[in-house]
């Protein structure tokens, strides 16, 4: 099973270039699509779900264009859109039945799946209430339940954890990792911790281009020697934050412990190197306007590899 994107470019009607020559190969496993708001994640997902037809390039599933045999492709698809609104008048259970009808799941199977999914996302008790009365987390869970209702081979989740509290986040993360066997899961988010531990590969998307596609471990390894810690006083903090790419702050006996990303010569302070986390990777690539350009930075990583 393989989903391939070949040189996909998408330009919106008003001339906005949302995706620029994106090529990806996806095989079963969880892919974390990381990027800031406006990076083009939703656009990419809309193309994969055939909601949008790309300006140029092609998406292939099992070697065939997804637009060619559209319905067969869609029957293997599960999609959770970025949340906007829902059918507020429907009840949760009814919504799932509606989706089952749309996904052409046979009645007996649908019944089993729906009860199972409701149990799984802990909505059993509230299933007969109107969606309008649900909290944000409940809606998100319902949308996820809907996405996996037809046991899809390709699961597309667009910011499934947006607006959720930490507990719900963890639940959803666990849920995704549980169901990810034997299917391609593409999970878009701008929160690194959502995908840090469950992703087979991380795709870093920025301003419409894929700047990195590697396993988390590889990405972290690349960053060796680029993450530093040092102490500053409270007065210095503001300056330091302006000067460096700060990924974390914590309290230490001498003042404030700053964790910053950058090359050795960039950080002109007494410092000690620390192990990088995925959070640092994300910060390193995404905050390009500070210091040198992205190309330089990628170059510097390649240099380090050499």
């Amino acid at each position, binding site marked *: 099973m393989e989903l391939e994107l070949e040189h996909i470019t998408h330009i919106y009607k008003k001339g906005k270039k949302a995706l620029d020559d994106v090529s990806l190969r996806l095989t079963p496993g969880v892919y974390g699509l990381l990027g800031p708001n406006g990076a083009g994640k939703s656009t990419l997902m*809309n193309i994969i*779900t*055939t*909601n949008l037809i790309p300006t140029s390039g092609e998406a292939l599933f099992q070697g065939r264009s997804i637009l060619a045999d*559209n*319905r067969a492709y*869609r*029957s293997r*698809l599960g*999609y*959770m*859109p970025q949340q*906007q*609104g*829902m*059918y*507020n*008048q*429907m*009840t949760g*259970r*009814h919504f799932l*039945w*509606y*989706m*089952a*009808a*749309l*996904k*052409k*799941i*046979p*009645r007996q199977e*649908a019944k089993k799946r729906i009860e199972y999914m409701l149990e799984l996302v802990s909505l059993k008790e509230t299933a*007969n*209430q*109107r969606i309008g009365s649900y909290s944000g987390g409940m809606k998100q869970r319902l*949308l996820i339940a*809907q996405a996996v209702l*037809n046991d899809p081979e390709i699961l597309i989740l667009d910011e499934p954890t947006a607006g959720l509290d930490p507990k719900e986040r963890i639940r959803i993360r666990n849920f995704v990792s549980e169901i990810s066997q034997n299917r391609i899961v593409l999970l878009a988010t701008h929160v690194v911790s959502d995908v840090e531990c469950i992703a087979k590969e991380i795709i870093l998307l920025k301003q419409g281009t894929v700047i990195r596609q590697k396993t988390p471990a590889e990405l972290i390894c690349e960053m060796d020697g680029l993450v530093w810690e040092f102490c500053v006083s409270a007065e210095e903090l503001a300056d330091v934050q302006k000067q460096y790419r700060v990924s974390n702050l914590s309290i230490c006996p001498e003042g404030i412990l700053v964790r910053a990303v950058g090359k050795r010569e960039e950080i002109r302070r007494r410092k000690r190197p620390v192990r990088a986390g995925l959070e640092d990777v994300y910060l390193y690539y995404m905050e390009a306007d500070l210091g040198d350009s992205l190309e330089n930075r990628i170059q510097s990583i390649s240099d380090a590899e050499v």
Partner: protein
Amino acid sequence: MKHVYYEWMKFIHNRLAVALVLGCICVNLFYQWNAAQKSNAWLDQAFFDAQVDQILEMSQEDAGIWLDRECAWYRFLSQLGTFGEAALEGSFMQLKMEYPEVDWNLRLQERMEDGFDFSVLMREASHFYELQKRQAYALSYPVFLQTIQKQADSMLGISLFSDNEGFSQKNILRTAAVYETLEGQECRIDYSMAVSVWSDSQLADGLVLILILIIGWQIFWQEKENGLYPLLRCTENGKLPLAVSKVIAAMILLTVTTLLLYGSQILLGIGMYGTGNLEAPLVSVSEFRNCPYRICIGTYLLLFLLVKVTGVFVFGSLVMLLYTGCRRFGTVIAVYFVMIGLEFMAYRQIDSLSSINGLKFINLIAVLDAKSWFTAYRNINIFSEPLTVVPAKLVFSVCVWIVCTGLTLWCFCVPERKQEKLRLFKTLSSSVESGIDEAEIHSWNSHRKSEWIRRRWNNFGEIRYKLPWANGTSLICHEGYNLYRLGGMWLMLLLVLGVSMTMAEGIPDYSGSRDVQVYQKYILQIQGIYTEETEQFLRSEELVMRLEDPEAVQMKQELAAGSVTQDDYDQWMEKREVQIRLREVGFQRVLEQERLVQAARLLGSDAGFADADQVSCLFQNDNEQIQHVLLFLIAVIPGITWLFGMEQTCGMKPLIVSTVSGRIPLRLRKLIQVIGYATLLYLILFVPYYWEIWNDLERVPADLLLAGVKGYENFPLPISICQAFWIMAAIQYLTGVSCSLYIAAVTGKVGTPAQGCLVNFLLLVVPCFLFWTGLNLSEWTCVGGFLPSLVYRSGEVLYYWKYLCIGILLDAWAVYRILGQDD
């Protein structure tokens, strides 16, 4: 002020809204232009002005004589054109005798030398006839004023004996006093035709009612729909200042729109016919004879615009209130149109002298009808005190405006409590269905009212979710559920059913007048296929009428022979004459019908007599039919736009579209539901209506040829009354269905249900509404499809083909749009 500016920019950037406004203006202009072209095709403005100038140089008497002479001359010329040389004898001599001062021979010679073009001549003649009419009217105006005073005097004399303090007494006194102030106004003839062009604003009125809805939607509903209200309200200026600026922006937009709409019409009129003399008194125009104000045409123009703006403000404030007060767009639309319908009925049906004429004059429609402010002087009967209409209207408008605007501001600032109250529609719909609302259950629980009810409710809930439409994988059931339950259309069906039941009245009994009774009696005797017997019967009746029947002949002979005395004969004659006089009118109608029947026998042998009055209840009561059509459209549009726009409103479209059946199969199911809904509505609305009529039909043998019945003699096809009925019903139904498809397609194109509603109301409801008010747009709009019986009368069967073609094209487009969109 900044907010006002933002609202403006928002409006201007909304292409749909701007396009609708501009589109309305263009449609209005085109219609007015077309209508004016049709009715004033003869007018050559330069020629007209030249004649007017000539007249203005004469004294009034001279002008009168000159015009009479010219008109006589043109009448003669037209006779010459029609009858040729023969006219020279009679008419020419008469002309010479009446006006010996002119050398007519010379004039005729000159005219012949110029070349005798009959059409040019007829056009020229029309100018003189028009001028003569104006001149005669100008002379009659002072007489009219005097008549009023005289009438008042004489009425006062009579009413001395009746109640002195009554309304009519005071009314007469007041009226006389008002018209007394007009004494001495001189009517002029040099005004422009433009006055009539801009005064007739029915179409613009209909359009403006929708434009108000659109502007209100843009300013008050869009953000509400997008859920931005909570956000806006908690900003610093989010409550009263924002509300005020929204109101101001709306009012400015409304003013601009109104001025554009009506102003463009005025400019069109002036462009076509020139300004004329703007200082001429308004009463110079014969339509405004009863105008009680001493104003000139120029002032009228300004006042007209002002009144229109006032009317639009009143409606605008109502719409703002509805938008801020109601939760559902459907409610807004329903309340708005029901209100307009009721007001219009009151305006139209109530007699201007009845004791509830206040409802007629202090009326929203009356406010908007600016011309009516100037065409009559009326007093309202308020506890038998006369209250002059125009100031009353003004006060009414201002009051409505202030109250509605105030309430709008209040609703905007105090949202939550208010909304709970206005949830009536929804609460009603859900509580009627389930008996108990879930929310209520919760509150009961919290009050620990009854565990029993809770358990019952839960059981009920369980059952509810086992029902096939809520719990199944049939898409079509789901869409039905979406339409009827979620969209609340089941309630709509019930409402429509109720209304339809009360509206189905059958044929009213109108055997009241004697002539009708006689006619009905005759028809009763001879109804059915026209045969020899029928003919014999009619001939013998004819003889009776002409006093040539055997009895009369015998009487005459006996009188001549002397066996009957003159007295006896006279007595007999008297009886006979009474009899004849009683039957005459009715019999004339029968004879007239006989001629049609005979003509129709050429089409087929089934021609014969049927009660034309009753047949007209089937094919000629446009008013009732269009009311049913209006109801149909008003009920069908919200349902369809909801069903086809629901994904869009809640942003679920990408998800739905990415499922297996989310495209063509889903839309096909929706379409089937829509057709089902339209069918249901059609059945609910029209079956009781027609059923009652068919039940009441007597004296109408249904298998007679339609063309043999009076009123349908132009219809060239040999179909029977029964067939005609079924064809009418079928075409009506098909039009309904194709309109539904069309509505669905338009909704898919414009986006949300609210937008779809607005556009469709403009395209479909407005023409029907205008038809109801008397403006016939049936050639160009869906009205013709909904009233196929119009063709039975005009006989222009080609229209059916036109409709068929347009219908098929539109529906093909619609189905293509709906099914073939993005696959």
